[in-house]
């Protein structure tokens, strides 16, 4: 076993062929199955003897014709099916090819275009299940392909036609996250003429891009790129901007998602706030770490996150405001303020916009589609403790560096450390990325280029500074990236290969020492530095967890949101009408984030423009005559699709909510809950057909292999040996013989 048989030469198999099936003369109203075996170029044919599978298919019950062809998904391939359907030759179609995830929609459409109900289509996956995994086992892979075809044939004969249902789509969209991704998604939909509710948890939209100083590789000011778009979002008549808000609850289904949004009180009347800043000077609290500046400066308890914030209004931070936290600010008490008898300093300074009587509000919406664009958090730099972030002030994150070089930042854009201009600056790549030990195996995609940008910024501001970038690989794959990297090196930034091992400080010194190996020289070095910038990676935003559970989204192993298909459906999710875009799906730069944001807008507009959406018909069905109303299924249904009709005491299915997972089917004690397209009898027929073993020679081989395994196992264990042997014997006998 194992070697490709010499006599099998796939090049000898012609590009197409067909065999008349044993049911060729069957009456029109009986199942008449056509089986179409695909070569997938040579992907399948190289291992699976497609000619043999075709001949075998023709010998199975109800098969009228079996054909094989080089590419079934091609137009001429689909024509074979169309022709057989047009001539009335077949009324059931099976394609034995690749995964249904790949081409089930293709062939279903081939059928429906020719007037056959698409649920009379069935697929046998002989590529992912046969030729690819069993590449060295030609004979066994061919046998397995036959078995899969046999089980598809058994199921096909029992299939029922299903009607696809349509639901109306509410012409409004919910966008969660007001970073650059969510902003672009919202703008496209709004400009298309539809209503968008944009929910952002922070007081302003803008996300991380608002914090950046310049952008690679063009070095444009991030603020000048972003501000016009932010203003557009804030002023757009079709955009209902809900900042300082969070989604509390989402239910429903494509076309009709019911959403509850929590609107946190800002204690400011946004209409009346004049953006005059007088309250800030009055507030006695001055030591709140400023999150927009990454903690490099402080702010008061009443604040605007940054000068070009949208909406341009102030917010009272309830966590730090003395009046809200401790009930007293200056001489004013919260009760006194609410009664209008007393006033804290901010209220006295403010021309009438502050309102401590505001309460949290819940707003209810119904939307047709949902776009998740919750972005990222930077990886905690302390995951690589050897770089001493938080221990030495000379060690900062790249996001802090963005604030240092930003005109709106704490130093007005000047690069200073401990009050001095740095002379030696070291950048460290891949901090918290590409690192199994910290649990992030992926590459964060943007750090190589932002490091190049930041290294350039140092050189530009401090031409005499010694700037070293330490790296393991430089990934400069985007448009203009490699050229930019070259330019930065020409400016005198030294790229030193090798990741530093640790950072330490000699007693009494301000500067730190970076220990590394220049791997291209094979020589260790110790480099003193005034400033070390950690090229921290990107991780999924922590705030996304509640969204994941509300929307029943999946995540990939890296923790980022999972797309419906990594190549073919990059912004769809497993649930129709829910889209993901930007850095919540994987790390990416602004360009790619915007592209995805716009893609989700287009995906949503498809539904909004049509006003209707097709819902999956392969869902649960309750046989009301058998249902005993025990409601056990309600507990297992993850989508809340089931509801007991209290009057008739039977279960009912909300067809738009049910995803056809089959949970109810498996727990129903009376057999009343079944799945359309996966009826018990259809699945059992499939299983039975699979467990038949037809090839007698193969059976003997399997038996002797099993016996050998049993003998080996019993060689060591004396008393269990005979039992194992017996077990094997009875099991083999129980297998039904050739059918």
């Amino acid at each position, binding site marked *: 076993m194992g070697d490709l048989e010499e006599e099998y030469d796939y090049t000898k198999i012609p590009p197409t062929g067909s065999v008349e099936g044993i049911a060729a003369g069957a009456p029109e109203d009986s199942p008449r199955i056509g089986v179409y075996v695909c070569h997938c170029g040579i992907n399948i044919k190289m291992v699976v003897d497609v000619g043999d599978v075709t001949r075998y298919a023709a010998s199975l019950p109800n098969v009228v014709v079996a054909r094989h062809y080089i590419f079934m998904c091609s137009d001429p391939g689909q024509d074979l099916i169309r022709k057989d359907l047009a001539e009335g030759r077949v009324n059931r179609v099976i394609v034995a090819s690749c995964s249904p995830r790949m081409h089930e929609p293709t062939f279903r459409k081939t059928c429906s275009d020719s007037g056959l109900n698409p649920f009379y289509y069935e697929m046998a996956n002989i590529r992912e299940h046969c030729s690819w995994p069993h590449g060295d086992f030609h004979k066994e892979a061919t046998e397995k392909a036959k078995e899969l075809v046999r089980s598809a044939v058994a199921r096909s004969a029992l299939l029922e036609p299903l009607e696809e249902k349509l639901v109306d789509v509410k012409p409004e969209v919910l966008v969660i996250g007001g970073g650059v991704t969510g902003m672009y998604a919202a703008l496209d939909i709004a400009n298309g003429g539809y209503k968008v509710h944009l929910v952002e948890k922070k007081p302003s939209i803008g996300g991380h891009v608002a914090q950046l100083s310049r952008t690679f590789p063009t070095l444009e000011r991030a603020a000048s790129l972003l501000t016009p778009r932010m203003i557009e979002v804030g002023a757009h008549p079709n955009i209902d901007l809900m900042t300082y808000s969070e989604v509390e609850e989402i239910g429903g289904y494509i076309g009709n998602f019911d959403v509850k949004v929590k609107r946190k009180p800002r204690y400011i009347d946004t209409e009346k706030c004049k953006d005059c800043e007088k309250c800030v000077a009055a507030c006695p609290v001055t030591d709140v770490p400023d999150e927009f500046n990454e903690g490099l400066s402080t702010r008061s308890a009443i604040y605007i996150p940054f000068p070009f914030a949208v909406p341009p209004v102030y917010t009272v931070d309830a966590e730090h405001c003395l009046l809200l936290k401790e009930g007293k600010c200056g001489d004013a008490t919260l009760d006194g303020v609410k009664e209008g008898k007393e006033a804290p300093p901010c209220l006295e300074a403010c021309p009438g916009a502050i309102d401590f009587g505001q309460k949290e509000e819940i707003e209810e919406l119904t939307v047709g589609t949902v776009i998740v664009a919750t972005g990222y958090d930077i990886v905690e730099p302390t995951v690589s403790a050897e770089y001493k972030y938080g221990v030495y002030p000379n060690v900062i994150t790249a996001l802090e560096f963005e604030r240092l070089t930003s005109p709106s930042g704490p130093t007005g854009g000047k690069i200073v450390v401990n009050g001095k201009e740095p002379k030696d600056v070291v950048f460290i790549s891949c901090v918290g990325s590409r690192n199994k030990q910290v649990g992030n195996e992926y590459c964060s995609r943007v750090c190589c280029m932002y490091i190049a940008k930041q290294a350039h910024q140092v050189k530009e501001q401090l031409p005499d500074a010694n700037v070293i970038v330490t790296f393991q690989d430089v990934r400069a794959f985007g448009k203009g990236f490699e050229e930019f990297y070259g330019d930065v090196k020409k400016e005198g930034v030294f790229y030193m290969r*090798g990741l*530093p091992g640790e950072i330490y400080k000699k007693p009494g010194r301000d500067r730190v020492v970076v220990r590394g190996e220049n791997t291209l020289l094979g020589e260790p070095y110790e480099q003193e530095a005034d400033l070390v910038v950690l090229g921290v990676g990107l991780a999924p935003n922590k705030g996304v967890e509640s969204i994941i559970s509300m929307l029943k989204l999946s995540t990939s192993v890296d923790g980022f949101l999972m797309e419906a298909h990594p190549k073919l459906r990059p912004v769809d999710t497993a649930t129709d009408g829910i889209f993901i875009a930007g850095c919540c799906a994987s790390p990416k730069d602004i360009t790619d984030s915007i592209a995805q944001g716009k893609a989700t807008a287009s995906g949503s507009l498809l539904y909004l423009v049509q006003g209707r959406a097709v819902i999956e018909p392969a869902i649960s069905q309750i046989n009301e005559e058998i249902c005993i109303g025990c409601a056990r299924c309600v507990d297992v249904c993850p989508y809340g699709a089931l509801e007991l009709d209290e009057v008739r005491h039977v279960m009912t299915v909300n067809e738009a909510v049910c995803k056809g997972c089959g949970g109810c089917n498996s727990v129903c004690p009376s057999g009343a809950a079944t799945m359309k397209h996966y009826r018990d009898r259809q699945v059992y027929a499939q299983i039975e057909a699979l467990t038949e073993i037809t090839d007698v020679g193969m059976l003997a081989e399997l038996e002797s292999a099993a016996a050998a395994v049993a003998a080996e196992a019993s060689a060591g264990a004396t008393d269990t040996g005979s039992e194992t042997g017996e077990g094997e014997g009875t099991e083999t006998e129980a297998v039904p013989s050739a059918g």
Partner: protein
Amino acid sequence: MGTLYEDMVACGGEIFGDEHIETLRECVQCGKCTASCPSGRNTALRTRKLFQMALTDMREEIFNSPELWFCSTCYTCYERCPKGVKTTDLIRTMRNLAAKEGHMSVPHRMIGVYVMKTGHAVPLGPAQKELRKAVGLDEMAPTAQKYKDQLEQVQTIFRTTGYDAMIDFDWDTMNLKGMDKGGKK
């Protein structure tokens, strides 16, 4: 004898499991191990380079290089390697193979001699004995260094496993063959 990699998986796999040793192939030569190595700070040990040499099957060069024996097995690189390469255990495995092929360094063999003679890699010396007496303890700790019969058991283990032959131990002089007491040729 296969490639060095194969032999390492066979030899180290027995102790640590194959997958542990197979991490060698995941090394991306980032140099963080060398950069973290306290020994490499003062010696010629380039941890990263050892793995590159192992991957390019430079068996003789590794086995004949004194650097292989400079690792203090502190496991710093093991903790910091971003790829989860089991660095220190790979070095230990290479040492095992080198030793089997007669390449053990003299200081390492001398440690064997101490164990053979006293049951300890670091036996109690005069200073420690004084210290023990000063704090009111028996001059000797109750170990193989004190009890002849226990020491004999240690020596039996060494004889049975052939360790004595591996380090070229001379039972007459109770030292390495061809060496004076200081361990020098």
